[in-house]
Structure formats: structure tokens, C-alpha cells
């Protein structure tokens, strides 16, 4: 299986798909919809095939493809996946399908819309498999373009400022990151993530940085922090970490819901992926030296995210902030894991728990948030575009199945045991508590508030008196139930048997755990 370029194929498939959809879909919107789903299913099949063929005992990269690209600048075409990359590929493939499903009712310029969704998918695959900075950065940046157009063309009334804000914020972060990587390139003469990590872990990065860019007479330690800050900014905007989140609520609310699904389900994971793939292996000492502010940021992301969600009345905004809140737990897990250096057995176990919880949470949040936004899209279409909490009420009477299924997704987001959200949050808290007690304790407030606002949503939408205009609100049709059922089933499956995912993540987590030595 190694000889065959599966990962390149996986990335190329949606690109080809986008072309086919544009050309063949020009005649009939129906054809465009079905073709794009066909290609997305194809990508999912490849991802599942990769899942099946993945060697769970290996912590390093598998299916590596490496070719010279621009030798003069040390740029390589370098692909490979480990457990983390694999789970992200699978997540992207699933979320894209959910996004396509939720976008079914788009009527305007259908082929273009579906082609752009497929392009986003291709960029996600590219970014989650690339192991060379420039190669990775290419996809990271490129991902913004189809997303920009999706928001700009099909978004809500305030789409133009939202799209511009989204792009400019992310670009600003990327620029800072690019500068940092250029500095590291000049010091280490490589753009390879793994080589940079090796150099950093052996303690050679800082001296050569100081030698190559003696900037403003900074000590090597401070220079390291500046470089770290640049890279951190890039990822922090993408996740987003409070206080770099201001672009998110507008963007999520204005984007067509199908696109919001992609943004929250998969693109936000790019930022966290960057934390795990780049920041932790390369910058663990720098992270440790500013850990207190970082932990405060995680706490702010969790607590303020959930508080803001509670204050919202627009369904999309509620779940936009809820997304921030849920990704905050991941940040907590990551930051807690780098708190203490050393490698005694107990520390390693705690760290491993926090990190596997984080990776699991990334996957779970992707599935859950995407599904919830799918339900929001359904509510939106049936109520003629209404999204305010006060627009709904008592829907349980007319649409019991919808209420039940959406309830399951919401409870998964809330972290109810037996559903997927619980196990990952539990693992993060279990691992992080001994490592960063105060921060973890503060984050539990977030759990509480999440429960409050989610129960509030359930109550306001499904209980109470039925509004007059919803008197003939339709329940989910059989077809819709069929489509939604796999997502709901996945939540139960991962909640009851998380080992399915963890088995593939274990080796990667172990390797990552061991790299935090400094």
C-alpha cells in the first residue's frame, strides 16, 4: 500500500470532482448535487480504506510520499499521516458530506457552490497530510479562498463584511506565522516539520536562531518567544482562542449553514491540528515559559465562550460561541500537557490522557457541531429563514422525531455520558486536573454554563406553546431520517466504544507525549 500515492489521490479527488461538477453540472443542478456527493463519498471511502490499512502500532508517519519541489529553497512535496492526521482526514470527509447534505436546498448557482465545497475539502486533505511547511501553508491559505467565496456569494445579509473580516483576520495570523517560519528556515535551513522538531528538541534551534537573525539584541530565549508568538498567532486566530475570536460569530452567522458546518466541523480543527503538529513538538519550552497566560486564555475561551453563547438568541450565534467553548477544552488539554517537563510514568499517563482527550474531542466536536448545524439548517428552511429562539417553541408536538434526534445531538454537545462528547471531555479533565488544577477547576464552570444554555435551547425550541405559524411544521421525512441517522449513530458508537478511535490515536499520542522533554 505504501507504494501507491493514496494521500495525493485523496487530495486530488475532490479537485477533480470540483471540475467535473462545474462542467457536468452546468446543465442540471440535480446532477451537480449528486455528482458532488458521489465524489465526497469516494473521498470518504478512501479515508476509510486508509483507516483500515493504518498500522496502529506505529507512532510515526505512514504512507509517506516525498519528492523534491523547489530544491533551491528546500521546499518538498512531503506527505504522510499519523493517527492524528488520519482522524482528521476521516473527520473532514464526514463533515464534507454533512455539509453537502445541509446545502441540498441551495438554489443559486448550484454547480459553483458544490464545486467550492469540494475545493475546501481538498484543501483540508492537503493541509492535514502535508509535512513540509510551505506545502502545508499552501493548502492552509488556499482553503480561505473557496471559503471566502462561499460566504461572500451565498451568505446572509451582512455577508460582505463577514467574508472580508474572516479572510483578513486569518491572513494576518498567517502572515505572522510565515515570518516566524522564514526565521526558522534561515536558522535551520529546512521547512520540514519533523526536522524542525528534531532540531528544536535537541536544543539547537535557539542558538542557530540567535546566530542567523540577531534581531533587536534579543536574547535567544526572547527571540524564541517572539518566533513562537508569530506561529501561535496564526493558529490562535484559526481555532479561535479568545481574544482572537472576534471574526468568528459574524462569519458563522452570515455564512450559509452548509459552509458554517465546514468551518466549525473541519476548518477550526486546522488550528488545533497546528497546535499538536507544530507548536507542541517545536515550541514546548516556549509554551511552558508563558504557560500561565496560555492557561488563562484557555479558561477564557471555555468560560467566556459559553457565557457568550448563553447571551445569544440567534441559533447560529449560540452554536458559534458554543464551538469556541468546546474547542477551549482542547486548548486546556494541550496546555496542561506541556506544563511539566520530565518523563516519570505518572506524568506521562496524565499527559497522554489529556492529549488523547484533546484529539478525541477534536473529532467529536467536529461530528457533533456539524450535525447540530445541520439541524439548524433544517429548522431554518422549514421556518422560512428564522433563527431566533423566540421564533420557535413547542415543535415537539409537530415534529417529535426532529426533536428527538436534535436533542441527541445537543446532549452530545452538552457532554452526556453515553454520547461521544462525554468521553473526550472526561479524558481531558482527568488528564489536565493534576497537571493544571486551578485552570481545570475554572473550566468546569464552562461545563455548567454549557448545560444551562443547551437545555435552554431545547426548552425554547421544542417545548412550550406551539406558535401559530408553525402549525403545519413538518417532521423529518423518512429520507432525512435516513441521512441523519448515521451521524447520530456515530455519536452513540463513539460514546459507547471510544476505543475505535483511541486505538488509532494511541501510538501517536505516546510519541507526542515523549517529545515533551526539553
Amino acid at each position, binding site marked *: 500500500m505504501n507504494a501507491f500515492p493514496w494521500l495525493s489521490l485523496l487530495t486530488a479527488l475532490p479537485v477533480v470532482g470540483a471540475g467535473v461538477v462545474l462542467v457536468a453540472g452546468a446543465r442540471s443542478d440535480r446532477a451537480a448535487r449528486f455528482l458532488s456527493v458521489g465524489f465526497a463519498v469516494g473521498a470518504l471511502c478512501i479515508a476509510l480504506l486508509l483507516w483500515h490499512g493504518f498500522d496502529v502500532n506505529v507512532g510515526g508517519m505512514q504512507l509517506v510520499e516525498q519528492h523534491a*519541489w*523547489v*530544491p*533551491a*529553497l528546500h521546499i518538498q512535496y512531503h506527505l504522510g499521516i499519523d493517527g492524528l492526521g488520519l482522524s482528521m482526514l476521516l473527520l473532514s470527509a464526514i463533515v464534507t458530506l454533512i455539509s453537502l447534505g445541509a446545502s441540498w436546498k441551495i438554489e443559486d448557482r448550484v454547480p459553483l457552490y458544490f464545486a467550492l465545497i469540494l475545493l475546501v475539502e481538498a484543501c483540508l486533505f492537503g493541509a492535514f497530510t502535508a509535512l513540509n511547511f*510551505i506545502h502545508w*501553508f*499552501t*493548502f492552509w*491559505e*488556499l482553503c*480561505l*479562498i473557496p471559503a*471566502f*467565496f462561499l460566504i*461572500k*456569494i451565498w451568505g446572509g445579509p451582512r455577508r*460582505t463584511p463577514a*467574508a*472580508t473580516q474572516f*479572510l*483578513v483576520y486569518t*491572513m*494576518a495570523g498567517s*502572515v*505572522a506565522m*510565515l*515570518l516566524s517560519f*522564514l*526565521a526558522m*528556515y*534561515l536558522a535551520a535551513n529546512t521547512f520540514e516539520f519533523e526536522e524542525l522538531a528534531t532540531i528544536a528538541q535537541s536544543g539547537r534551534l535557539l542558538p542557530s536562531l540567535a546566530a*542567523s*537573525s*540577531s*534581531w*533587536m539584541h534579543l536574547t535567544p530565549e526572547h527571540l524564541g518567544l517572539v518566533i513562537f508568538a508569530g506561529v501561535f498567532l496564526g493558529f490562535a486566530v484559526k481555532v479561535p482562542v479568545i481574544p482572537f475570536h472576534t471574526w468568528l460569530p459574524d462569519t458563522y452567522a452570515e455564512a450559509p449553514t452548509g459552509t458554517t458546518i465546514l468551518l466549525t466541523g473541519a476548518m477550526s480543527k486546522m488550528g488545533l491540528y497546528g497546535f499538536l503538529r507544530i507548536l507542541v513538538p517545536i515550541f514546548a519550552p516556549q509554551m511552558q515559559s508563558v504557560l500561565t497566560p496560555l492557561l488563562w486564555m484557555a479558561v477564557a475561551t471555555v468560560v467566556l465562550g459559553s457565557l457568550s453563547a448563553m447571551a445569544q438568541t440567534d441559533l447560529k450565534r449560540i452554536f458559534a460561541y458554543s464551538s469556541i467553548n468546546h474547542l477551549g477544552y482542547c486548548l486546556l488539554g494541550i496546555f496542561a500537557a506541556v506544563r511539566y517537563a520530565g518523563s516519570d510514568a505518572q506524568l506521562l499517563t496524565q499527559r497522554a490522557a489529556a492529549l488523547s482527550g484533546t484529539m478525541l474531542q477534536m473529532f467529536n466536536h467536529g461530528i457533533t457541531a456539524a450535525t447540530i448545524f445541520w439541524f439548524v439548517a433544517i429548522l431554518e428552511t422549514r421556518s422560512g429563514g428564522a433563527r431566533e429562539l423566540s421564533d420557535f417553541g413547542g415543535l415537539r408536538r409537530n415534529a417529535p422525531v426532529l426533536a428527538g434526534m436534535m436533542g441527541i445531538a445537543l446532549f452530545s454537545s452538552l457532554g452526556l455520558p453515553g454520547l461521544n462528547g462525554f468521553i473526550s471531555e472526561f479524558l481531558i479533565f482527568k488528564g489536565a486536573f493534576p497537571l493544571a488544577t486551578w485552570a481545570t477547576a475554572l473550566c468546569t464552570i464552562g461545563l455548567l454554563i454549557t448545560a444551562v444554555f443547551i437545555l435552554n435551547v431545547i426548552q425554547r425550541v421544542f417545548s412550550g406553546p406551539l406558535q401559530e405559524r408553525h402549525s403545519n411544521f413538518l417532521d423529518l421525512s423518512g429520507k432525512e431520517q435516513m441521512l441523519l441517522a448515521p451521524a447520530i449513530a456515530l455519536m452513540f458508537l463513539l460514546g459507547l466504544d471510544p476505543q475505535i478511535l483511541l486505538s488509532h490515536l494511541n501510538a501517536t499520542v505516546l510519541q507526542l507525549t515523549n517529545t515533551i522533554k526539553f
Partner: protein
Amino acid sequence: MSTNLLALLPELVLTITGVLVMVLEPVIPAGKSRKPLGWLAILGSLLSGLAAFYQLQIVNAQGTLTAFYSTIQIDPFSIFFHLLIAAVVLVTLLGSLDYFESPITHAGEYFALVLFGAVGMMFMTSSVELLMVFIGLEISSISTYILAGFRKGRATASESSIKYFLLGSFATAFFLYGVALIYGATGSTSIGPIAAGLAITRTPTMAILAVAMVLIGLGFKVSAAPFHVWTPDVYQGAPAPVVGLMSTAPKAAAFAVLLRFLFNGTPMLHGHWILLIEILAVASMCLGNLGALKQHDVKRLLAYSSIAHAGYLLVAFTGTHQNAVAGACFYTATYAAMNVGAFLVLSQLSGFSERIRSIEDFTGLALKRPGMSALLGFFLLSLIGIPFTGGFFGKFYVFSGALQNGHVWLGIVGLANSGVACFYYLRLLAAIYSRPTSDSVAYIPVRKVTAPAAVALAATALATLGLGILPNKLVHLVERATPTTTAAVAVQPTQQ
């Protein structure tokens, strides 16, 4: 063929074609289409490109060629620029073949002037004697002064032309005065002897002043801030295909002169001129991008963008000699591809009459001309510097060169600027993909793009894309393009 003629082959081909076009012009009866002349000019530029390519083979085999008593030096550096200029001219001619709405009588002059201008630019890049540079500069400038006012019968055209002319000659005077001073300080006007003379000069202050004045003169030509004031007005009034040409080819030539003059002629004064270059670079990037933010006219917007891009290009000069040449050459090539492409799209959309001008006019363009919108969008993305476009690698190359040489601030300012630049390119892009369609878009014909223009557009788009995905070929070429000062140059023309 004697070596002399071989070294001048691309210029010769262009000159002969240009003269032929002028001679044949009166033969064609009034009212008849001038297109055959256009095809002749296209053939000429194609042949001159091939001639440059042939020179490359010769230079690869035999080493540097010289001509005109060693005032012309054909090395990979000059051949690179010859190829670039020939390509820009070829694409511009293809794109403007059907530009003139009716068979107007002076269309023949247009084709001839483009060719003559290219001759001047090519001379600038290959000469190592400031006299030849001056003549080349004047040939190219005079042609472009006239071309800028080519939309005859419109007040904006002659205004654009006169502004360009007055500020251009103003700059020429600075350049000439600088050359005179450098002659006084070193006793020569050839690149090699200037470098030698600087080592023993007794009037270093005069030399520094001279370099500053040459920089001012060429700064005008490349529209680097603070010498950029003419750019928006001239670009706004000139015909779109001409702007595409004059925002790239003459600038490339002027940058080539700067590279040779600064790195080969005055390396002794590196510490002095690097400061000036930094100031010019920062000013151009900041003023260009900030100026573009509040523009409504698309051509003005792209004019400010070209000022900013001149700034990015100047950043390349802060690298080591090899990095500077490689970075600047690469950036010039990518900038030429994307900018000529953008202006070609504009000229296709708004035609000779240029009815659609402002960003608002472009609202909803995508609904009417999806293909053209996608192309323009692609060029704009490349101007922003999105990966998979040439613009990304160009910026990357330039900034890594500057950082490598310790100019961290410049790198930070530059990258921050490219963030700011996002805003105004996106404003245009957002308008194109907005709804509802503006009334002005109704003026845009739904006609098919003619075959030559389609070829030109495809060529620029493919070049932009190719430089973004597989920049390797060009990187190889520019990495070994660093010009050397050969001993032969030291021979004075008058001593022969």
C-alpha cells in the same frame, strides 16, 4: 553572423519589424483594418523572443557576448530580461489586436511604438555603459509617453500623456545629472570602470550624491514612493493594454539597470545606497497600499498596487547580490504575468471606450461574464500573494532574501503590508461577486473573446499559475543570472 550582430539580434529584429510596420502603414488604404500590421508586430516580437532564446544557447556554450565596443553585454541576466520584455510585448500585442473599436488610421503607429519601446527597454537591460542605458531609457520613455495618450480625442488621454511626459523628463534630468557626477567622480560611465574608479576616487561625497540622483531618476521610472505621484493619473488615463505594458516592461528594465548599477557599479557605496533603498521600499509599500485603500477607479487602484509592488521589489535589493538578482528577477517575472493579465482582462471588459471604471461598476460582473471574472479574480489573488500563484512565491523569495541578510524590519513591514493589501483587492473581488448587477455592467458586451486575446489571457494565467506551482525552472534561471563585470568592459569605447 558577426558576434556584434548576434548580441543585438533581438533588438535588431524588433527595430526592423517596427520600421516595416511604419512603412507599410500608409500602403493600407484609409478605413481598412490595421490588423495585418498587428500580426506583423506580433511576428516580430515572437521572433525577437526566439532570438533571445538563441542567444541563451550561445551564451551557455560560449560565455558572455559583447558588442558596440563592449558597451553591450549579453549574459544570462540580460537574456532573462530580453525574454521577459519580448513576452510582455507579445502578450500585449495579442491582447490589443482587437482593442481598437473601429479601424482607426493610427493603429499602425501603436504597434510600431510598442516595438520601438521594447527596443529601448532591451538596450537598458543589456548595456553596461550608462550612455547606452540613457539612450535606451529615452527610446522606451518617448514611446510610452505617446502610447499613454493613445485614446486620442479624449481629454483624459492627453492629460495622462503630458503628466507622464513632464514627470518622466524631470526624472531623466535627475538621472543624467547623476551620471555626469559619477563620471566626474570616477572618470568613466561604464559599470566596470566605475567600480574601479570608486575605489580610488578623491570625491566620495560626489559619488554618493550621484548614486542618490540616479536612484531618484530611476525611482520615478519604477514609480517608487515618494516619486510615485504621476502613477495613478497616468494609469487612469492611458489605455488599459498600454498600462499593462508600461507597468511591467519599462519597470523591469529600470530595475535591471538598478541591479547592474548598484551591485556591479557601486558596490563600494553599498552602505549608503542600501539605506536609500530601504527608505524607498518602505515608503512605496506603505504609501502604495494605503493609497489604494481609498480608490474607487479600478485602474487607479491597480496603479497604487503597482507602487506597492515596486516597494516589494525594492525589498529584494536588500539581499546579498545573488539573492537580490534572483529575487528581483523572479518577482519581476511574476508581477509581469499577473499585472499584464489583470489589465488585459480590464481592456477586454471595458474596451476602447472604457465605460466601466469604478469598483461599483464591476458589481455583479460574475453573473454576466463568469469566465472573465474568474480570471480577474485569479490575478487579484496572485497580486495578494495567495499560494499556488506566482505572487506567493515571488513575495516569499523576496522576503526570505531580505530576512537572510538581516533586514528583519523590512520583512515585517513588507508582510504586514501584504496583509493590508488584502483589503482593497478583496473589495474589488467582493464587488465582482456581489448582487445585484450594476447598471454599468450592462455596457459590457457579452461577446466572445477573440482568439488572439484568448491566447494572451491564457498565457498570462498559465504563467501566473505555473510560477506558483512549479517555480523551479525559473528559480534555476534566475539563480545563475547574477551579472558579473567582465574585464572586457574596462576598455573605453573611444580608445579603440
